[in-house]
Structure formats: C-alpha cells, structure tokens
C-alpha cells in the first residue's frame, strides 16, 4: 500500500501541481474541521474522493483500499464512545444516546479528514511537499530529516519484504507459533539493518560532499491561474454548502 500510494503520488495527473493541490486539500481540511460534521464530514469526504479519483486519476480501488484500515480504527473507537459504564449499583454497561451522537459527529469528521489526507497523499509527491515546506520557512534540519526518513522508509520496506520472503520460503510462517517467532526475528533484524543502512548512507553522503546540510533543487512544478482559482474557490464553495446543509438539517 505504501508503494502504491507513493507511485500514485508521483504519476497522477496533478503531480506537477503541488501548490494548488496542497491549497485545495488544506481548504477541504479547514472545511471538515470548522463546519458542522454531520454535513461537512460526508460532503467533504465525497468531494475529496471524487477529486482524487476523477480529477487526479487515482485508482478508485487504491483510494478505497487505503481508507479501509483507518476506517476500521475509526469504527472501533466510535463503538467505544457509544458505550457507557456505570458504577453506582455494581458495574453496569449500557448504550449511551449522547455517546452515540458524539461518536457519529467525531466519526464523520474523522472520516472526512481521512479522505482529504488520503487525497493529498495520493496526489502530491513527497519531494513536492517538502519543497513547499522549505518555501514556507521550515527549519532545514527538519526538512533534511524528513527527506531521509521518507527515503529510508522505502529502502527498509524493500529489506523487510525480502526478509519476509526468505523466512516464508523456509516455512517461517507455517504455523501461528512460527509466524510470531518469525515476525519477531524479522523486526529485530530490521532494526539492526536500519542501523547498518544509516551508517552506510552517512558514508555515501560523506563521499558526495555532505557536511551538515542536504541541499537539493526544488522539483519542477506547473501551476496555472485557473488551477489556483479552483484550488481556493472549490473548498470555499463546499464550505458554504456544508454550512447551508447543516442549517437545513438542523445539525
């Protein structure tokens, strides 16, 4: 999933328009956080999904697949909010109407925010948003760290995949007990490999002239006035609709 999202972010139709897309996603996020959640959650979630899939060309299956696991967490948390515990006459467990309403509001808001985050992750390459952060004046050391962490994630993911394949080929995942043991071994080994990787990368960068900074050119970008206008206008319009809808349904 990590690789699929990364690949999509670097190849989607909007990948060279990081500035307007970031503004668009920031606008949607502001809407979902500020507008009443019963209207804004579903509305912004659907808008973000449509923008990613129909606008940027993100595969629908990827978008929905990436939403599934976080939605599972959301559902679990929402269910916990619906339950009330009482200790007046021993321990009593019951359903709470107020808790359910809170769960619904929080769940819808979080689901909308999740869709916006995913829209951003699938459409803006990491190099582009790091460049935007640089322009925004984020400290260089933090950006260097971000860049290294992003790259290392994928290098380690390749290592993890090959380790898991190697363990699997020697029946390391044949039973539940073996699965636990193999997973623990793989994690321990991955930790050691990550240290080794870091040392080798440091050597590699030193050989290329690294001293204390990782300067890189900003990636090529393209943005039209129409793109900027849409990126600012659509979230404002959706925000207005969300407030209107909320008033209409009395939320």
């Amino acid at each position, binding site marked *: 999933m990590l*690789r699929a999202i*990364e*690949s999509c972010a*670097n190849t989607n139709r909007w*990948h*060279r328009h990081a500035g307007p897309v970031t503004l668009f996603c920031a606008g949607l996020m502001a809407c979902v956080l500020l507008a009443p959640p019963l209207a804004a959650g579903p509305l912004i979630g659907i808008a973000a999904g449509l923008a990613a899939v129909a606008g940027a060309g993100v595969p629908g299956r990827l978008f929905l697949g990436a939403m599934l696991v976080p939605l599972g967490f959301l559902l679990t948390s929402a269910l916990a909010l619906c339950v009330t515990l009482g200790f007046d006459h021993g321990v009593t467990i019951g359903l709470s109407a107020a808790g359910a309403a809170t769960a619904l509001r929080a769940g819808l808001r979080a689901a909308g925010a999740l869709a916006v985050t995913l829209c951003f992750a699938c459409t803006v*390459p*990491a*190099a*582009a948003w*790091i460049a935007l952060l640089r322009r925004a004046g984020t400290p260089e050391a933090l950006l260097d760290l971000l*860049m*290294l962490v*992003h*790259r290392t994630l*994928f*290098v380690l993911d*390749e290592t993890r995949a090959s380790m898991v394949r190697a363990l699997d080929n020697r029946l390391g995942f044949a039973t539940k007990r073996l699965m636990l043991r193999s997973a623990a071994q793989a994690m321990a080994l991955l930790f050691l490999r990550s240290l080794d*990787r870091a040392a*080798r*990368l440091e*050597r*590699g*960068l*030193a*050989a*290329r*002239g*690294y*001293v204390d900074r*990782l*300067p*890189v*050119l900003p*990636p*090529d970008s393209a943005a039209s006035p129409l793109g900027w206008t849409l990126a600012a206008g659509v979230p404002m319009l959706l925000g207005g609709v969300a407030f209107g809808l909320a008033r209409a349904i009395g939320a």
Partner: protein
Amino acid sequence: MTLLDAIGLRYAWPGTEAAAARAPGQRREALAGASLAVRPGVRLALLGGNGSGKSTLLLHLNGTLRPASGEVRWQGQPIDYSRRGLAALRQAVALVFQDPDDQLFAGTLAQDVSFGPLNLGLDPAEVARRVAAALAAVGLEALGALPPHMLSHGQRKRAAIAGALAMRPAMLVLDEPTAGLDPAGIDILLDHLDALHAQGMTVVFSTHDLLLARHWADEVAVLHQGRVIAHGGAAAVLDDAPVIAAAGLRPRRFADGRRPVSSPSWPGVSRPSTPHRRSADGRDTPGHDELAAPDGAAAAPLRRERPPHG
C-alpha cells in the same frame, strides 16, 4: 605522471580486532599496506576476491576513509583532510557505491543528482544544467522526476553514477558497477562509461569479473589480503595464472577446465538416481564420482531429445 597515488595504506574497520581475536583466520586489517598508482585517462580494474579490501581501498581514494598509516596523493600532493580540502578532492574524485541505496537519498532522481553540485556552491541555474546533462549522460533524462525507489536496480546504479558525474570529476571511482546487473544492463552501463572515458575521464572500478576486466580495462590491479599483488596491462596481469590463482579469482574447480570428480555430500540430501556406496567405515557416500570420466572430461556426450512429431 600519475593522477592519484595510494602509498602503503593500512586500515582496519572498527570492531574487526575483536572479531580477529575470536576467529584466528579473520584478518584484522582490511588494508595491509596497499599501494596503487592511477594514471590519467586510464580504465583501471581493481580485481580481488570477497574481503580482499577493494571497497576499503576505493573509499580511501576520495578521502571518505583516512588510512591509519600510508598516504593518498592527488596530483602529487598529499590529500588535505580538512573540510575544504575534502570538498575539493570529492569534486575531482567521485565515488559510486556498489549498492546505489547507499547514496541515493532524495525525493526524486533530479534532486538527488543536484546534491553534489549544490554542495560545490554553484548557482541553481548551473546546477539544473548539470543535472540535466548528467541524467542524459546515463540515459535517465525521462525519469528525473521519479523517486529512486520507483526505479529498477540497474536504473538506480545509473542514477548513482549521474550523481557523481554532475560533480564533473576528473576521476570516476566505481565499486563493483556491474554487480547485480544482467548482461543487457551491463551493456548499457558500459556504453555510458565508454562515452565518459572517450571524453578523457579516468575510470577506476572494482570487480571480480575477469571477463569484464579483460575486455574493458586498460590496466588491472589485483588485490589480495589488503595488498596490491600485481598491477599492469590488463592482458599481462590476467594471463599471469599464479597471480590470479593466489588472489582466488578463478574457482578451483574450473581452474583446469575439468569437471569436478566428486561433489560434496550434504546432510540429509541424497540423489536417488545415483548409486550409493558404503565405505569401509560404514558411512554412505554419494557415488557421483562414477559420473565423471577418469580424465575429468565430460562423462557423457550431450544428448538431444528427438521431437515427438518428426
């Protein structure tokens, strides 16, 4: 006149002393007095088996490692290990690692290639020109906007070389450049290196591929147990059978062009089609030696199956 001289280099990796103390066969020093002279414009292959010290020696050539004793001279002058001195040296001597993931770090290839030139303090317009030229030189101009992890291993190798080329070095040092590449990938890589060499670039590369050294290098240096034991014209060194054998560069079983007489027996593995024999001490041994002709020639002529229909 030499471009670079490594003279009597000695170096031990941290922690190897403890390993050597526990394992008597383990060498303590990765380099034990290695010396190497690199002439300008030459293609020099550094040959040696695993653990012979090839990579360690290459890391000394641009000051990434500093020897415990001995010295490296660039254009006749000892390397200046100060921050400014190393920056100047690394502009002149660019190193490409065996594993491209050891040096690719940025979000896109173009960004990664721009790292070296920006470290030289060049202005962004000049850096952008160098990035485009370096990516074009290795045939990756169309992939500059992609992150390294979306490329194949061969493409990553070429991306790493582009990162070195963007520094406009006088000497390119490559650690096992063909490792992990298929023949087509090797061809592509060597085509690009040929073009660079034709422009006058000195190329030093490590390998244990005798064929590559014979057909591509002008000179060959053989490294064994941390020392250069031979250095000269490619044909002369590679035809020196004792040197090649001493460096462990030709598998023993292929050394005389004969088939192996016996195969090692693995615990728990048997070959049902091969008769087993019981030795005098009662142990079963596979009888593969029966398959080999007494003079070591192929036991049976190659047989081709007749097609089922005509």
